[in-house]
């Protein structure tokens, strides 16, 4: 019989959590309640004595100063309706896990198999609320039906039934393990049906390739010897589907593309990845020779570059878009803890140093009807922010850099980019730390969490658009503490040399992690029945591909096995020995000693047929708009500052711990009031050195609506511009490309696929051209290619988006420059020419136009400028430096002024620009590679000398009058705003979120 312990605040204690829920119900749903209070419920399904239950309630479960508790009787009173929200069976319940451990510490005995603590929360609503409204509150804000369930009772029902009865969300025991065989000797239509029904996301050609494989007499003969028939098992088919998924195999980037440039020229591109991304890095590394900073690129979970002679820096950025669309909190949380495992599990392992996050959402104030299955952008915003907050803060990793970009099309699928940087010694136990190699005979060891049904088909799910049947098991919740314990253990194991190789269990689960690590030895033998399960009833194929979180896989040599296992037990980390790496050439899985999967390593890794994709660029006839200049430029500037893509994100930034580890030297917020927007972050990872890591990014999806070539070029430039503005060394920096595209494969569903594929080609061409021009190698990246929503007739495709993240070095963090004006009397300079480039700009968008003149990057001029800025920083002659991006010069002037708390007086006639440009164009053009710099008057000569022969104009002064004054082209007073008004316009829009 399950017991219930209810814990609530004493009556006189303020319920801050309840107040926040009340506030958010108002903001999300427009429902005004009188009050909300909360009660925590622990449902204990375990053999415990009365005294033990009482001790748990009075001890770890409640706080004697502010809380009261009740056991098996209601605690709630004085409400109109009560909603209790708990998890569905099988969903990760972190609080329940901690509650179980707390009881075990108290009693000194472990729970028996199947015993558990489950948690839920009661919301006591007071106000004009009935059952129907409570249902709306539960489904629309308090709970997510995919992972949670709820019970609603009004006061009368509650009194009549004596409270909410205990219910135990235990996973119902599945049947005995069964291995099914699948007959592939069927028609093409049936092959596709098998793929669809099984959520395999394999196309016909791939299904036929598999069909042909099991017809091969040699394969059949070998299968016979192992007791397998000539039909594939479900384990084998699932393993193939995971390994061959777009998510794991990047089939679009590996495809053969016939590209027609729309002007009569065609070319065949054999793999975008090889032709542009890998080639850029290879060419740059070759050209740099001894100055090459790359140590490990593309082959591992993250890229590794040199930091100094003793340390290397590691960086990886991932997306977690599809899960975040279904459950924003869980999706984002697993996004961040997942990329943590990548950054840890690179080479032999690396200490986690910082997180970054970039989100693309629709406006939280979206007020149109939403298509089915989509969550309101406000809810996605809140859930994602909270997920990353919990993932980063609880893991003790500072979130140092990020942004939020808004476009209505991200209602179809939000983009959630999560990045993690880490730092590793150059060598560990005498060997390079960025390399690893599993050896024949090494044991396959899984550490961390247990396996459940969570995350099954995550890899194939994210390889499709969001549709009616998108699986709910793809949604999961992360557990940062279990992971933190595992990392604490693994870093000791690394330093003691207890493993030969390590990798993360992410998409595709064991199938991916073991399968990939086995490429070192060319084979493995994996015993699926030895894997620890969260609950009984998993089928062998589910164990193989489950994406349950917080797991790493290691190759542990037999001689170190005992020491490894003992250390794990002492540090309370669960590890299991699942088999061995072999040189058999086989992907071999067993269950209870019987072979359930045996595929050639060559076939599973290299057997996927190359896709062929048509790509056709077309001129879409964009034109420049004609409209009158605004009459009131002060109001226009305020309007620009209040745009969602420009306004302050402080309410989000403050929710992330950006300085744990005491290494964040330039924080996300800076300036006189600690609230100006930093361009990049500077991290000082070693206590005994002033060398630092600079992290920044660029992202400009709106330019894609005109030309993805210039979108990509601008994203690269923006990333580098932010990096240099803060002090990063342009000659010691590497890039990461994260593509998020809408489906670019022409089909019935996607009639404009060839154009989208051409957009992809053009972005890749720019990626190659500009990385090579800037000398910036790419070290890692990822693509997410199916960011579409399609249900019924409604299709929403995201704008093609590339996040370009950069990581590099600053020799001395004490030379970093921030963006805030420092003191009155300093001179204001604009570096770089301002051209009539408002196509795709925030300004045109505000006026309702797209335009045609998308910004173009002059890499040679930009590189020269960035190197000179570095020299000026080294000489200490730059007081502040701020990049010009969304909103151009007008926004940069305002931000520099109000962040510094000093006014600026500037003159548009001094701007380096072609004759005839209008004042509004000068103010809001988004020409790339420009920086706004302030310089002490006494440094004027030194500064100007450095920039001799470059576009460098003295356009104004920092003043002490608390205002921004801009003189127009006729010498008139074009802008005369008070800083407080500009700052208010900039801070107001998202302040309450």
């Amino acid at each position: 019989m399950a017991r219930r312990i209810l814990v609530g605040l004493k009556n006189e204690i303020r319920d801050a959590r309840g107040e926040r829920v009340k506030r958010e119900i108002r903001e999300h749903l427009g429902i005004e309640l009188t009050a909300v209070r909360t009660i925590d419920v622990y449902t204990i399904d375990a053999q415990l004595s009365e005294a033990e239950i009482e001790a748990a309630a009075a001890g770890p479960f409640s706080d004697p100063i502010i809380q009261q508790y009740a056991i098996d009787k209601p605690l709630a009173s004085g409400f109109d309706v009560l909603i209790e929200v708990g998890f569905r069976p099988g969903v990760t319940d972190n609080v329940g896990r901690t509650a179980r451990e707390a009881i075990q510490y108290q009693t000194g005995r472990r729970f028996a198999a199947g015993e558990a603590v489950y948690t839920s929360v009661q919301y006591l609503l007071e106000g004009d609320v009935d059952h129907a409204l409570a249902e709306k509150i539960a489904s629309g804000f308090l709970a997510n039906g995919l992972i949670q369930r709820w019970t609603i009772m009004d006061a009368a029902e509650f009194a009549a039934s004596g409270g909410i009865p205990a219910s135990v969300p235990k996973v119902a025991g599945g049947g005995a393990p069964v291995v099914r065989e699948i007959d592939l000797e069927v028609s093409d239509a049936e092959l596709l049906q098998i793929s669809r029904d099984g959520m395999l996301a394999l196309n016909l050609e791939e299904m036929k390739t598999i069909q042909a494989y099991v017809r091969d007499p040699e394969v059949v003969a070998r299968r016979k010897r192992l007791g397998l028939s000539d039909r594939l098992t479900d384990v084998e088919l699932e393993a193939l589907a995971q390994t061959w998924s777009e998510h794991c195999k990047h089939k679009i980037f590996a495809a053969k593309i016939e590209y027609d440039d729309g002007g009569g020229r065609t070319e065949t591109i054999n793999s975008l990845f090889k032709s542009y991304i890998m080639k850029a890095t290879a060419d740059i590394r070759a050209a740099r020779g001894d100055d090459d900073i790359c140590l490990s690129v593309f082959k591992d979970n993250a890229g590794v570059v040199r930091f100094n002679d003793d340390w290397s820096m590691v960086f990886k950025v991932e997306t977690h878009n599809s899960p975040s669309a279904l459950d924003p909190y869980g999706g984002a949380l697993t996004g961040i803890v997942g990329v943590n495992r990548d950054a840890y599990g690179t080479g032999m392992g690396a200490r986690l140093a910082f997180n970054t996050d970039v989100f693309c959402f629709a406006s939280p104030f979206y007020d149109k009807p939403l298509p089915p299955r989509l969550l309101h952008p406000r809810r996605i915003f809140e859930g994602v922010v909270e997920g990353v907050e919990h993932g980063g803060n609880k893991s003790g990793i500072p979130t140092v850099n990020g942004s939020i970009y808004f476009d209505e099309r991200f209602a179809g699928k939000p983009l959630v980019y999560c990045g993690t940087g880490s730092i590793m010694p150059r060598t560990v136990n005498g060997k390079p730390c960025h390399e690893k190699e599993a050896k024949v005979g090494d044991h396959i060891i899984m550490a961390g969490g247990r396996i459940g049904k969570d995350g099954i088909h995550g890899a194939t799910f994210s390889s499709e658009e969001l549709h009616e049947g998108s699986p709910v098991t793809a949604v999961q919740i992360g557990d940062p503490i279990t992971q933190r314990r595992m990392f604490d253990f693994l870093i000791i194991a690394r330093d003691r040399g207890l493993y030969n190789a390590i990798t993360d269990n992410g998409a595709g689960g064991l199938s991916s992690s073991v399968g990939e690590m086995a490429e070192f030895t060319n084979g493995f033998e994996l015993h699926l029945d030895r894997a620890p399960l969260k609950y009984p009833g998993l089928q062998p194929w589910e164990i193989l591909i489950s994406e349950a979180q917080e797991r790493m896989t290691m190759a542990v040599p037999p001689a170190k096995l005992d020491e490894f296992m003992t250390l794990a037990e002492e540090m309370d980390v669960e590890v299991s020995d699942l088999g061995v790496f072999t040189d058999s050439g086989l992907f071999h899985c067993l269950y209870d000693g019987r072979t359930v999967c045996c595929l050639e390593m060559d076939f599973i890794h290299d057997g996927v047929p190359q896709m062929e994709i048509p790509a056709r660029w077309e001129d879409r006839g964009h034109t420049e708009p004609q409209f009158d200049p605004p009459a009131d430029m002060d109001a226009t500037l305020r309007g620009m500052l209040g745009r969602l893509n420009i306004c302050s994100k402080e309410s989000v930034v403050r929710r992330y711990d950006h300085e744990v580890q005491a290494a964040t030297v330039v924080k996300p917020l800076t300036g006189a009031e600690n609230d100006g927007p930093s361009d990049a972050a500077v991290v000082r990872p070693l206590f005994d050195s002033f060398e630092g890591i600079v992290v920044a990014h660029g992202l400009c999806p709106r330019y894609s609506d005109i030309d993805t070539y210039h979108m990509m070029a601008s994203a690269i430039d923006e990333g580098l511009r932010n990096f240099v503005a803060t002090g990063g060394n342009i000659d010691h920096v590497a890039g990461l490309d994260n593509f998020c595209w809408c489906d670019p494969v022409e089909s019935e569903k996607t009639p404009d696929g060839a154009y989208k594929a051409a957009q992809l080609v053009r972005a890749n061409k720019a990626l190659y051209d500009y990385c090579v021009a800037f000398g910036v190698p790419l070290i890692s990246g990822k693509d997410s290619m199916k960011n579409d929503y399609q249900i019924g007739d409604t299709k929403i495709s995201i704008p093609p988006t590339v996040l370009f993240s950069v990581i590099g070095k600053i020799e001395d963090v004490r030379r970093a420059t921030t963006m805030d004006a420092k003191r009155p009397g300093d001179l204001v300079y604009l570096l770089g020419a301002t051209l009539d480039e408002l196509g795709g700009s925030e300004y045109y968008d505000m006026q309702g136009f797209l335009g045609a003149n998308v910004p173009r990057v002059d890499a040679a001029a930009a590189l020269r400028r960035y190197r000179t800025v570095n020299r000026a920083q080294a000489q200490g002659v730059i007081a502040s430096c701020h990049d010009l991006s969304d909103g151009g010069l007008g926004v940069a002037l305002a931000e520099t002024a109000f962040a510094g708390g000093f006014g600026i007086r500037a003159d548009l006639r001094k701007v380096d620009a072609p004759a005839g440009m209008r004042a509004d164009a000068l103010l809001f053009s988004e020409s790339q590679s420009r920086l706004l710099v302030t310089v002490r008057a006494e440094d004027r000569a030194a500064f100007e000398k450095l920039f001799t022969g470059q576009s460098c104009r003295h356009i104004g002064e920092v003043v002490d009058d608390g205002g921004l004054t801009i003189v127009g082209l006729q010498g008139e007073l074009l802008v005369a705003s008070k800083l407080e008004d500009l700052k208010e316009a900039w801070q107001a829009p998202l302040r309450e979120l």
Partner: protein
Amino acid sequence: MSKTVKSIVISGNGTNCEREVANACRLAGSDIYDIVHVAELLSGRVSLDDYHFLHLAGGFLDGDDLGSAKAGANRLRHAAISGSEEKLADQLQRFIADGKLVMGVCNGFQLMVKMGLLPAIGGDYREQTATLSFNDSGRFEDRWCTLKVDPESPCVYTRGLDTLYFPVRHGEGKFLAGAETLAAIEEKHLGVVRYSTPDGAAATMAYPLNPNGSQNAIAGVCDESGRLFGLMPHPEAYTHRTHHPRWTREPELPEEGMGLWLYRNGVDFIRNELL
């Protein structure tokens, strides 16, 4: 060697700030500044008896899943040391009885309060008499706050100090105690540091200067001996001028961050008055 100051920072189960706390101990002149995983203590290979200065660092013990540091406090109370009759809690009580120093920051402060180590009026270090609860905002926040030091406090860490500036980074930092305990804290000057106006002139309840709504603006408390001290703001996050959020615009900031002063007072106390 009798003057060797030995500091220990306990790590594990969600402790996050152990490295920077150990570094602060090093910079403050502690001769030994070991980071010890709690598993090492429970294995019996390392004992608190070997140290003078115990640090409970910030983080999220067990995810703060049962309320901040609740599960962590439960573990320290009940966890037994392998191969001995002793519990870790017994070692800790002996450590305190020996007149040694214990400092908790953020989650470490929450842990001390929930174990009963603070404010421990009357020297009872086992009974919880105060708590730290959800910020009035209902949210986690990272922001720098000015703290005013009570000059009459017995706290050994804040001797000679007046105004401090550190970041808070917490969701559950609102200090609450019953009327009797609160009166005793005030009477005995145990409310060592309070959130204050930026000039350090006056304690304040105004958000965001007081980021969580703590009673009487209390940001940190000590026991009556002044040797046990905990606070929500993070002194270990300000040990160098480049930690200060405005270091690029305030050239007059000293090289050394003011967080170091607290650690140095602790180390000096051990060297001069304990050893």
